[in-house]
Structure formats: structure tokens, C-alpha cells
């Protein structure tokens, strides 16, 4: 370490100089923080202030920089020294703006600032500049899986942007569901009439494009590798296999229709009952003429039953709304009215959902004389050559039976997500268990026979397909990063990730194409994809210490870690999102990043000058997620929302990266309480790393034992779900927690180390 030179730059601007005692801060940095250079500046983020730092790095041999000024989220353009490790002590948002003004509070305020300097110095000493990712590969070709509207759009968008595209389609021709439609719901003004799908033109463009290669009647037999270097085997129906390398993958595998046979109560199977796909077929055959039933019978009256087998609360059918089917029924009712206005068309709905400009389309159908009735259908039965629809009219509040020659059921979209890897993992565990024990009884877990064929056939340790969220839909970050799946470099687009209409699917395709382009460009530079876009650090594992416990491989939300034959973890840096969940999981703490590690945080926790048990000045550690909670704290400062001066906040990449050693260390070194703030977990998660906050929660559920061992109250560790908009709430939470600590008293653990 002889070559290292640590320097602290303290800013007295933004009012800091008037309120804080800089002599003390400098003393702390020098004596306790062991900083070799200490400089005070009245306006550090000015060009001149920044130049001082640059000059010191260039001429004075400064290797590590501590900025004692504003939050690490502020002035990032000014304080940007890519080749120098830098820590930021947050004196402005973290102290000046949140501690009550006035001389009464001078003491606690100064203590807070001193501590942030101590912590910054401690962190800085453990930091290094990321050396860069050894796993960069620069194949920039984009593979699109699925040749329907979504896939075709993604392919053309990526190709037009200048990237090579490989398109793999299972069927012998392109087009998917769109090819089976007579017309589509309008997506242009005046939104009044069904429109041509435009598919033929799109297919022609794709086929003629010099940058797009199309594989028909083909599937993926294997997908291995990582962004920038995916190795895929494309198998044709005949069994021939082509090996290709691609940089990123867009999965546009689309949907299947819900099986009509599962809806016998709604007449599934009767000759007078079809689903919307069936009606498209009839309309296509009629081609603008009078639509007939498949058995040739004329149709003078048709009833559309919305939400058939959808939005089902009993758990039997699809739990969700497929989003497109109301507009589709409106369109199909128009097929009839346009061919013959005397055909009676009734749409039975409970809620008519017409997204986008659908309202105009709805009005147009009303003008054409389509009758819309709010009603809940109970059964559809055969009656003569037609059907009886039995429903409750929800406006007139009465049971009604309505006869019709044809009934159209608006069934939903079932995503083609491939294998539910959670089931496979369970299956494997069951097998293992039954191997160890006496002959296994029949297990309720799905057998491999029940599993649909895999779409991607990934060779990842975690399973062959993209993880699913719920109801079989592929997990994609619905709130922040819609096309991001939990497999870096593989993007889901279209109805495979959530039910949607054609217009939304084309938007999705465009978005996913752009994400795929970002992915190949990032991979080539060894940089992380969002949310830590551009990050060059990556997890480094000290294999000598590894106990092959497999926690990191299991917990990594992004499937970045495989195992070698000796069951050691193998990190695929390009698949890694730098969340640190593996670091938080590792029980022997052998995983770290150069600029973020068990030590960078642990040393901060241990750096404090801990007041004694009788001081009445407790210390509360706040580990705050850098994506939502820490910005919320900064915003509390920005709006001058005051909170307790006993708290010390440390940003973490994700709650998932919190290693429980930090908490036990904190408690052992006399901290009076530990607060954790992360994003919402569960099915409607907001965690930027999807599973991080959930895993943290799980790990924390075990912390109570530790607390008991230490004879500490369970209140000493508390965790919260916080959103970025919660700036007022975080302050309130801190204040409440400070009250709790006051109530239960100071920690008895002070002064033992």
C-alpha cells in the first residue's frame, strides 16, 4: 500500500461552512481517517475546485479521493475521476439539510458530519478501481425467436438500425397469429373501421432485408453463453442443426389461445360456439360476404361473450384480462354489421375495456347498431340449431335467456413461456430427496411429460427458459424496465410477457430491439446493463475460501452463475447485473467487487466513534437501497424535511447485497439499531434487481435468532419497503424508529470491542 495516497477534499460551500466546524472535520479526517492530504474549498464543484483535485491526482500522486460535500448522487459530472477510487461523505443532503437548524443542535449535527467523514475514509481505504470485465465478447447479431407480429417488427427495427438479425420461426411460414386474422383493430385515425393487418407488406420487407436471415420450421435446440457470445443451435423439423453465435436474444414466442374444451359451461364444443380465433377463420373464409358457421348454417344473430375463462377468481381459468379481446369483439361484431346491418349483434360484457383510441372504435360500433349489454353470462346451451345464452343483465338486474345462431367466446391469451423452471427445480429437489430416502411416494409435482417444450433450451444451471412471474407469464420488470427479463441479454417482447394487443406488441418489439442493441454494445465493452448501466465492476470470488454451498448460484436473480464439475461457482460476468446479491448470500464472504464489498461497508460500520451507553445519543445504522431509498433520503434533504441526527445512512446496491455479517457487526460494535430500506418485493415487486429485496427479507427473517443469542430486543433490526417517492415517509420512519430506540433504551453492547 506504499504507493497509495489518500486525500480528503471538504467543501464549505452551500452553507456547509457556516454551520459545520471544519477544523474538527479536518482533524477527524487526519487523525482517525488517516488522510494524507486534506483540503478545504469554498466551492469544490466549481471548475477551479475540481481542477485542484485533478492536479493533485496528476502531480501529487493522490490515488484515492474522499469528497466531503453533497450526496454521491449530486454533481456526478464534476466529481468524475474514472481512474481514481472515490468515496463521498454526504454532508449536505445527509446532514446540513436534515438536522434541525439552530445552535441547540450544533453538537449532534457536528457528530453526524464527523461520522460521515470517518465512514468515508474507512470506505475509501477498501476501494479499488474496477479493472474491467474479462468476459467481453462482441458479437452484435440479434436473434429473434418467433416470426409473428412482434418478432417481425423486432427484426425489422433492429435491422434498420444496422444490426444483423437471425429470425427463427417454428412454423413453416411467417406471420403467427396475425396471419390468421381477417382484419385488425384500427391503429390509425379515425379509429372507426377494422383495418388491414399490413402483415404481407411487413413479411415482404423482412424477407427482402439484406441484414435479416430467416429460419423457418425451426426451433432452438440449445442456447448457451452470455451477452455478446450466445451460442445457439437452430434445429429444423427434419433434424438438421445449424450452430450460430449471436450477441443478444429477443424472445417473441407469443401466445396460444385458451383451450375451448376447458369451457364446457360456456358451450365450448357446440357447433354454434367459436372462440375469437375461430371467428377470424370464418370471417376470412367469408371475405367480406355473409359470415357462415363452419357447418354452413347462416348467422342472423350473434352474441359475443366477453371475459370467457378470464379474470377468473376461482382459480380454474385465467386470472387475468387479456387486454385485447374487448376491442377484438367490437371489431368482429363489425364484420357482421358491415356485411349485413340486419344481423343482430350483441356484446355481453361486465366491463368493456377499450385501451388506446378504442373509445372511438367502440362508438363506431354503436353507430353501426351493435348492442352492448352489461351482463354476466352463466351458461351457453344448445337450443335447436343454435344456442341459448343465459345471463344476468347487470343494469336491468334480471336473468335473461337470449337465443343466437352463433356465440363467440372472448377467451384469453396463454403465453408461450416454455418451461416453468420453478417446477423443474422442485422436481429435481424431489428426485434428490427420494434418492436419499426410502422409495418415494407419488409426488404432486408436475412430471416432465406435463411440461411444455422449452423455447430457448438454455444450458444455464437455473433452468432452460426465462423465469416466470405469475400465471405463466414471463417475468419482465413491469414497472421500470419492461422488456428486461431475469436473463441478461435476453429480452421478452409481446404477449409472452403480458397479454396485449397487436399495437402494443409492435411497440414492445421496438423497445426490446433497442434493449437488445444496448445489450450487445454494453457486452462488447464489458459493462453492466441497467440499472447499473456502465458499471465495470463485477463479482470477484476467492475460490480458495468457497465451501461450494451453492447459495450464490441459487440466489443470483439473473442466472449469471453456473457451476463447474467440482461444484465451484463459475461467474459469467456478461450475464451479471452487479446487484451484489451473491455477495450478500455468501456465508463465508468470499465474493466482492473492487469498489463494493463486505469490507467497504463493514469498515464504515466499525469506523464510528461510538458514544457510551449513558450518553443518550444512540446510533442508528440505515442501510438504504441506492435505487429508491437513498434517493428518497436525498429528496427529504432537498425539501428540508428534518429527521433524527442519530441516524447514519449507507447506500447499498440492493438490499439483496446486504450480508448479515454487517448487521451482526453493527450490533456487536454497539450500534443501537439497524434499519434496512429496500424496494417492494413479491408479485408486484419494484426491486430493481427483481429478487434482491425478497431474498434480503428471507435472510432477515433469520436474524431474530442472532438477536436472541446476543440477548437483544427484536426491535433492534427493522426493515421497510420504500419507494423513490417516499421522501416524507422515510423521514417519518427514521423519527419513529428513533423513538423506538429511546423506548427500548441504548444497546448494552457498547464498549465491548
Amino acid at each position, binding site marked *: 500500500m506504499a504507493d497509495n495516497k489518500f486525500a480528503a477534499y471538504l467543501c464549505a460551500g452551500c452553507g456547509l461552512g457556516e454551520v459545520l466546524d471544519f477544523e474538527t472535520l479536518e482533524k477527524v479526517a487526519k487523525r482517525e481517517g488517516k488522510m494524507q492530504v486534506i483540503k478545504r474549498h469554498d466551492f469544490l464543484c466549481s471548475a477551479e475546485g475540481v481542477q485542484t483535485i485533478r492536479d493533485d491526482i496528476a502531480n501529487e500522486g493522490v490515488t484515492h479521493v474522499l469528497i466531503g460535500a453533497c450526496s454521491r448522487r449530486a454533481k456526478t459530472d464534476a466529481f468524475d475521476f474514472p481512474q481514481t477510487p472515490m468515496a463521498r461523505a454526504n454532508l449536505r443532503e445527509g446532514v446540513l439539510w436534515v438536522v434541525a437548524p439552530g445552535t441547540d443542535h450544533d453538537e449532534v449535527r457536528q457528530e453526524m458530519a464527523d461520522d460521515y467523514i470517518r465512514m468515508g475514509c474507512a470506505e475509501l481505504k477498501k476501494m479499488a478501481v474496477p479493472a474491467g470485465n474479462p468476459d467481453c465478447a462482441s458479437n452484435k447479431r440479434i436473434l429473434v425467436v418467433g416470426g409473428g407480429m412482434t418478432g417481425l417488427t423486432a427484426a425489422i427495427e433492429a435491422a434498420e438500425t444496422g444490426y444483423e438479425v437471425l429470425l427463427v420461426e417454428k412454423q413453416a411460414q411467417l406471420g403467427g397469429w396475425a396471419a390468421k386474422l381477417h382484419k385488425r383493430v384500427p391503429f390509425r385515425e379515425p379509429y372507426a373501421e377494422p383495418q388491414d393487418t399490413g402483415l404481407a407488406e411487413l413479411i415482404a420487407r423482412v424477407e427482402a432485408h439484406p441484414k435479416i436471415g430467416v429460419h423457418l420450421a425451426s426451433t432452438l435446440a440449445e442456447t448457451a453463453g452470455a451477452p455478446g457470445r450466445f451460442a445457439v443451435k437452430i434445429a429444423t423439423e427434419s433434424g438438421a442443426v445449424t450452430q450460430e453465435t449471436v450477441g443478444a436474444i429477443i424472445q417473441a414466442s407469443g401466445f396460444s389461445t385458451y383451450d375451448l374444451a376447458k369451457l364446457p359451461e360456456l358451450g365450448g364444443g357446440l357447433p354454434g360456439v367459436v372462440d375469437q380465433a375461430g371467428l377470424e377463420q370464418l370471417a376470412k373464409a367469408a371475405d367480406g360476404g355473409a359470415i357462415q358457421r363452419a357447418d354452413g348454417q347462416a348467422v342472423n*344473430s350473434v352474441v359475443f361473450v366477453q371475459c370467457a375463462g378470464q379474470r377468473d377468481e376461482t382459480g380454474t381459468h385465467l386470472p387475468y384480462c387479456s387486454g385485447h379481446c374487448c376491442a377484438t369483439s367490437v371489431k368482429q361484431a363489425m364484420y357482421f354489421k358491415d356485411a349485413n346491418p340486419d344481423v*343482430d349483434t*350483441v356484446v355481453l360484457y361486465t366491463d*368493456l375495456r377499450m385501451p388506446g383510441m378504442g373509445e372511438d372504435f*367502440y*362508438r363506431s360500433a*354503436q*353507430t353501426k*347498431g351493435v*348492442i*352492448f*349489454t*352489461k351482463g354476466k353470462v352463466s351458461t351457453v346451451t344448445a337450443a335447436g340449431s343454435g344456442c341459448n345464452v343465459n345471463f344476468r*343483465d347487470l*343494469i*336491468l338486474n334480471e336473468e*335473461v335467456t*337470449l337465443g343466437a345462431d352463433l356465440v363467440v367466446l372472448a377467451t384469453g391469451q396463454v403465453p408461450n413461456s416454455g418451461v416453468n423452471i420453478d417446477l423443474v427445480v422442485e422436481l429435481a429437489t424431489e428426485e434428490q430427496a427420494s434418492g436419499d430416502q426410502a422409495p418415494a411416494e407419488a409426488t404432486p409435482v408436475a412430471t416432465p411429460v406435463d411440461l411444455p417444450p422449452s423455447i430457448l433450451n438454455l444450458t444455464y444451471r437455473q433452468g432452460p427458459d426465462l423465469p416466470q412471474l405469475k400465471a405463466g407469464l414471463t417475468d419482465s420488470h413491469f414497472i421500470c424496465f419492461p422488456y428486461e427479463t431475469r436473463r441478461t441479454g435476453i429480452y421478452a417482447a409481446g404477449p409472452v410477457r403480458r397479454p396485449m394487443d397487436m399495437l402494443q406488441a409492435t411497440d414492445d418489439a421496438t423497445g426490446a430491439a433497442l434493449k437488445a442493441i444496448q445489450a450487445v454494445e454494453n457486452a462488447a465493452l464489458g459493462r453492466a446493463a441497467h440499472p447499473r448501466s456502465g458499471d465495470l465492476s463485477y463479482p470477484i470470488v476467492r475460490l480458495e475460501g468457497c465451501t461450494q454451498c451453492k447459495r450464490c448460484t441459487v440466489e443470483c436473480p439473473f442466472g449469471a452463475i453456473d457451476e463447474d464439475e467440482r461444484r465451484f461457482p463459475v461467474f459469467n460476468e456478461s450475464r451479471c447485473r452487479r446487484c451484489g446479491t451473491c455477495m450478500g448470500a455468501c456465508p463465508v464472504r468470499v465474493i466482492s467487487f473492487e469498489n463494493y464489498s463486505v469490507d467497504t461497508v463493514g469498515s464504515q460500520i466499525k469506523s464510528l466513534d461510538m458514544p457510551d451507553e449513558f450518553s443518550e445519543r444512540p446510533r442508528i445504522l440505515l442501510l438504504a437501497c441506492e435505487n429508491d431509498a437513498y434517493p428518497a433520503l436525498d429528496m427529504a434533504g432537498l425539501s428540508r424535511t428534518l429527521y433524527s441526527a442519530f441516524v447514519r445512512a449507507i447506500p447499498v446496491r440492493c438490499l439483496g447485497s446486504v450480508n448479515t455479517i454487517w448487521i451482526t457487526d453493527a450490533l456487536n460494535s454497539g450500534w443501537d439499531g439497524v434499519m434496512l430500506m429496500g424496494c417492494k418485493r413479491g408479485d408486484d415487486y419494484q426491486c430493481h434487481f427483481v429478487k434482491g429485496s425478497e431474498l434480503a427479507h428471507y435472510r432477515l427473517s433469520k436474524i431474530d435468532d442472532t438477536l436472541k443469542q446476543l440477548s437483544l430486543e427484536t426491535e433492534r433490526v427493522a426493515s421497510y419497503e420504500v419507494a423513490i417517492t417516499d421522501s416524507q415517509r422515510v423521514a417519518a420512519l427514521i423519527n419513529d424508529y428513533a423513538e423506538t430506540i429511546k423506548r427500548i433504551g441504548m444497546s448494552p453492547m457498547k464498549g465491548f470491542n
Partner: protein
Amino acid sequence: MQALRTTGHQGIPAVAARYRNNFLKEVEAHVEDGEWVKMCMQCGVCAGSCPFGPHWEHPPQEIFMMIRAGKRDEVLKSDAMWMCTSCYNCVVRCPRKLPITQIMHGIASYAQELGLAPKNQPTRDFSIQFWNNCTKTGRVNEMKLTVGLYFKDGLVSGIKQVMNMLPVAIGLIKAGRLNPFELISGHSPKDQKGIAAMLKKARAIEAQRAPATH
């Protein structure tokens, strides 16, 4: 003058097929602004806005649904439309911009025309009295209209009502707002003939519309 038309075309007897377009088409052909009924989206804003909402048989939303459901008799025999006070609350609020008030009155007149309107419905009675009174000379005779209303249920109840209102009437006479001699003579507008001709023309135009019997 002919009374408000109670000519009693009986139309087709009511059992029209349910949820077919038959009655909707009839309404579109015969009711002023009837072509708007199909555009209602059943949001219920009118029902929630109507000051009479909780007090009458069917709020506008329901009437429109009943028309679409083909409930011809229930609609035409209902007293719902007669309860509308023409406050126009619903019209200003309807997101689909339906001229609800006009439609309500349109359906009421159509029911009246067919002879299906409920008997002894007070607003209907008043409307008939008012129409007859007004079209007789072309000018409303307040004395005759009031007295006519008071005595509509017979001599005894009429005298009672007159006695009740007498102080008000005397006050009005003193203030010069009521002329008791109007009861005997009444006066007419200048061009009574012109008004008669105008009404005749209006009836002729109305007759050109499709007859109520389909």
C-alpha cells in the same frame, strides 16, 4: 283544438324479441333524438346526477338499456319519462353527449301518441291541460289553467283547493299580477289565425314522419 294526441295507434302488441334491434329501431324512427339511444355507454352518470334519480322507476340509463333490451311495454307504459323536470343536469354531464332530457320528453310524447302513457300521471295531466289551454287561443290563460287543474278531480276537491289558495290569489290580484276577469273572457294574441296555421303546419310535418304503427 285537438288535445295532445292520444290517437291511440296501438302499434304492434309488445312481445318484441329481446335484445334485438326492433324496438331500438322503432325509437329511432319515432322519438325525437331517438337515434342517440344506442350511443349510451351505460356509465350511469345520468342516473347519479338526476335529482329525481332515487325516486322514480327507471333513471335514463336504465330506460336506454331497456330500449336496447327490447322492453317496449315496460318503457312506454312507465311513468319514468314523465318525472323528468328538465333540469338538464344529465345532459351537461353525459360523457357521450346524449341529449337525455330531449329523449326523455320524446319518449313520453311517443307513449302518449300510442295511448300507452300511464293514466292519472300528474305531470302528464298537467301537460295535457297546458297544451289544450295554450293551443286554444295561442296564449296561456293562467286563470283557466289553474282552475282547470284544481277542479280536475271533481267539485269538492276543487273548492277545497280554491279556498286554500285564495289568500295567495287575492295577494296576486292586489299586486296586479292576476286578472280574475280572464276567467270569463280571456284575451287572445293579435294574430290568432297565424298561430292556428302554424300549428297546422307543424302537425302536417309530424304526420310525414313514419306512422307509429310501423
